[in-house]
């Protein structure tokens, strides 16, 4: 009986597809496709030139090979780089004008765009395949001078801001996937918080890959001006498909003097089936620049989905007294592979960083924490604390910890700790004696293991994340 229930639960909840007419660019990667994307988005010339510059650079770049998870060669000519719901080609003015099918999709995902009030005051930007389809709560944000819109809209309406900051954290020639994104990015969110403003609500983007053979290349740019604060949430799902789909997003954060950005992700892309067929390749570049003094950037991620996850949300601590934080839970089950971690680059004086990483591997999966802490000769009185804990469930999975530590400053301290453990039989027995079944017991113990990270998430996300932690591991206890 229990097994049947489990079987049901194990199925990917977000694995449905939606039948929607789409406009697609021709398959393949070439200048024409890039022009097509730029044109359909009515971009100014400087943006097109920027994309073409990235494309030139891409021609000489190689795909990185150093990461642990290996993947079959991707045919970049066999991907649609642009796919948009037909009905969104003219962007609807308000939510009521949206294609009802898209609304339905988001409702199934638990993101009822219409019933904003139920979302406890979170402003949502929904990205469907390649384009942003809806942004909620716009009026309330505009009042405060906050800009929260799709990046396409920002390119048209706020070119001076986009021009100044796009590529300022992730340069156009950074690495293969980041550069690919710069050439073909389709949509994503743009946030600007004016000086001294504390954003009154959580801002959120929900990403959804629907069409098949489609890559999703969104680009997010968040700028927190002097003395401002914003908390931003990102969630992702995709339908179940047998083939692998590529997701190569770029996220750039810029925090000016005394500003703070909190960026939270719950990533639950389709992980592939039990035998490792299908699933998303999640190759994402996320980087934050603490540009001003006393600025702070905090990354929190819960990574449970994707066939392969490969991402290192990083902080460049340039401003004096700036702070970088990275809190991560990564769970792999079945055939999933994840290579994730962070980079903390200390450039300014009195900069601080903290890394808390919890990795859980089960089934036949493989998990790597890879991180860099680099304190430069000028970053006096800086410090880093890193804690990496891994939990293994079974002896067919792997857990790896690969920290790179570079201390070039005698006035600065770096401390790193890592442990590997398993759930003890006795802990399980104790919980079962108190009436919990083994799945519940594992969920409880694993959530305890992840607690320090879960605490960092905004309330609404924390509840979802806790459930996800339990569901992701179902079927992994013998």
């Amino acid at each position, binding site marked *: 009986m229990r097994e049947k229930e489990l079987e049901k639960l194990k199925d990917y909840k977000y694995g449905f597809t939606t039948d929607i007419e789409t406009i697609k660019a021709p398959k393949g990667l070439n200048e024409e496709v890039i022009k097509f994307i730029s044109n359909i988005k009515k971009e100014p010339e400087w943006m097109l030139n920027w994309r073409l510059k990235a494309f030139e650079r891409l021609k000489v770049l190689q795909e990185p090979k*150093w990461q642990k998870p290996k993947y079959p060669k991707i045919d970049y000519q066999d991907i649609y780089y642009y796919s948009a719901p037909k009905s969104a080609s003219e962007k609807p003015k308000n939510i009521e004008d949206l294609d009802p099918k898209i609304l339905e999709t988001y409702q199934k995902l638990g993101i009822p765009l219409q019933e904003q009030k139920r979302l406890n005051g979170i402003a949502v930007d929904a990205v469907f395949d390649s384009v942003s389809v809806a942004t909620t709560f716009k009026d309330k944000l505009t009042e405060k001078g906050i800009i929260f819109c799709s990046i396409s809209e920002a390119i048209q309406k706020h070119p001076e801001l986009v021009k100044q900051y796009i590529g300022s954290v992730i340069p156009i020639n950074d690495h293969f996937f980041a550069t690919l994104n710069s050439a073909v990015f389709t949509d994503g969110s743009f946030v600007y918080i004016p000086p001294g403003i504390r954003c009154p609500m959580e801002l959120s983007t929900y990403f959804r890959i629907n069409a098949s053979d489609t890559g999703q290349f969104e680009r997010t740019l968040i700028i927190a001006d002097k003395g401002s604060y914003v908390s931003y949430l990102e969630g992702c799902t995709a339908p179940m498909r047998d083939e692998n789909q590529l997701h190569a997003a770029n996220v750039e954060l810029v925090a000016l003097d005394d500003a703070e950005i909190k960026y939270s992700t719950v990533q639950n892309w389709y992980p592939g089936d039990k035998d490792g067929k299908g699933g998303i390749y999640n190759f994402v570049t996320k980087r934050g620049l603490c540009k001003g003094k006393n600025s702070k950037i905090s990354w929190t991620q819960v990574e449970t989905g994707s066939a392969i996850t490969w991402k290192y949300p990083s902080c460049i601590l340039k401003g004096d007294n700036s702070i970088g934080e990275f809190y991560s839970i990564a769970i792999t089950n079945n055939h999933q592979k994840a290579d994730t971690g962070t980079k903390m680059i200390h450039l300014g004086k009195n900069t601080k960083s903290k890394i808390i990483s919890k990795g859980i591997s089960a089934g036949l999966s493989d998990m790597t924490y890879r991180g860099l802490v680099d304190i430069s*000769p000028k970053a006096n009185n800086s*410090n880093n604390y890193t804690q990496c804990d*891994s939990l*293994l*469930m*079974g*002896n*067919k*999975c*792997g*857990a*790896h*910890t*690969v*920290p*790179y*530590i*570079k*201390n*070039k*400053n*005698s*006035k*600065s*301290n*770096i*401390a*790193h*700790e*890592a*442990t*590997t*453990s*398993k759930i003890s039989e006795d802990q399980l027995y104790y919980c079962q004696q108190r009436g919990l079944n083994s799945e519940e017991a594992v969920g409880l113990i694993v959530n305890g293991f992840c607690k320090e990270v879960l605490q960092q998430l905004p309330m609404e996300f924390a509840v979802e994340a806790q459930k996800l932690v339990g569901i992701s591991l179902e079927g992994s206890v013998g």
Partner: protein
Amino acid sequence: MEKQLKNDFEKIIKTTNFSKETIKIKENHLNQFIATGFPNRKLENWKFSDINQIIKKNIGDLGFYNDYSFANKIDPSIFIDGIEHNKIVFINGRIEKIDFTYEDINKIEILDQDQLENSIKYDNSLISLNSAFTNKYYKIVVKENYSLKKPLIIYQTSTKNLKYKNINLRLDFLLENNSCLKLIEISDDNSRKNFTNTFFNFELKKHTILKNYKIDKKINDNIKYSFNNIQQDTNSISETFILSSGSNFIKNEINCNLNGKYSSAFINGIFSLKNHSHHEIRTSVNHLIDNTKSYQLIKSVLDDNSKSVYQGKIFVNSKAQKTDGYQLSKAVLLNENSEFNAKPELEIYADDVKCSHGSSSGNLNKDSIFYLMSRGLDYEQSKELLINGFLLEVVEKITDSEIRNLIKNLIGVKE
């Protein structure tokens, strides 16, 4: 460099009498080295120490030919006083003396290894270089149930006239069941600007103990690489201690395979660096069966523009349940130009294991200095006292008391 390598290789073949098979194997190694060259920072293992650049910058062009037809004279003043010991003396890469005076002659066998096995496969071009150019080498066998009465000291020395040369050393050790060997490697160089490439193999059979103390103390401007490969059978113990201090550059690599149950490996090291020296220790301990144990403790004290690197890897395969693996590295940076790099790595495929690592680096604890100064010590005294205590913890790990005292005297650590 290719031309130089080929010419020097020809010269060696002419002046020695290796068998045809050996020459063939050596040629293969030569070609392999020519294909890859010296390792550079693009290789993960050499990320922190680009030896290709280091050789280029500090030495320039290297010669690979050494004339081994003449014996060098041994200067007895190099021998360590106050501790009775057996000796092997290398001068400029040539073995000048093998002396097991203190031992039962039937219990130690010295095999002349002019034939290289072809089976050694390492993804390491320096081992290819070593295999191509090494002179004939020996395999030292410690017979079953025999424990050497006195330690064996291997002196690696070089003379003033040696310059811009590559020297390759090789020794193999076999410890038969229930045997025991204490080994001290001391480098004592008078030469300048050479590249020494040392490759030692250890095969530890059941219930054996190997204690290996590697001492690099004398200041010199040579570039060095040393690779110790240790294979361990059931219930064997290996203890490696590294004092990394005197050379301009040295990278000590320890690869340890725990193949037998209840085997254990201990690796402890001290970097005590000044000036522009740049040293690295890289370990990989492979737990390949259940119930094995490893422990590593590496400490650095870095002054001036010096730099130390510790790359330590613990690998646990899926069979190796009940593994106990521990790794700790600590560094004190005394000068604003000094640098500490670490990559403590865990790669684990079994769930019932206890593995952890820790790393910390920074300056001396200000509160401790303040406390000591409030008791009347001046700043320098306080600093010295703290460093002394910091390093003492590693020295205390040395299990042989005679050698522990010897090393304490060598680095001036007081109790």
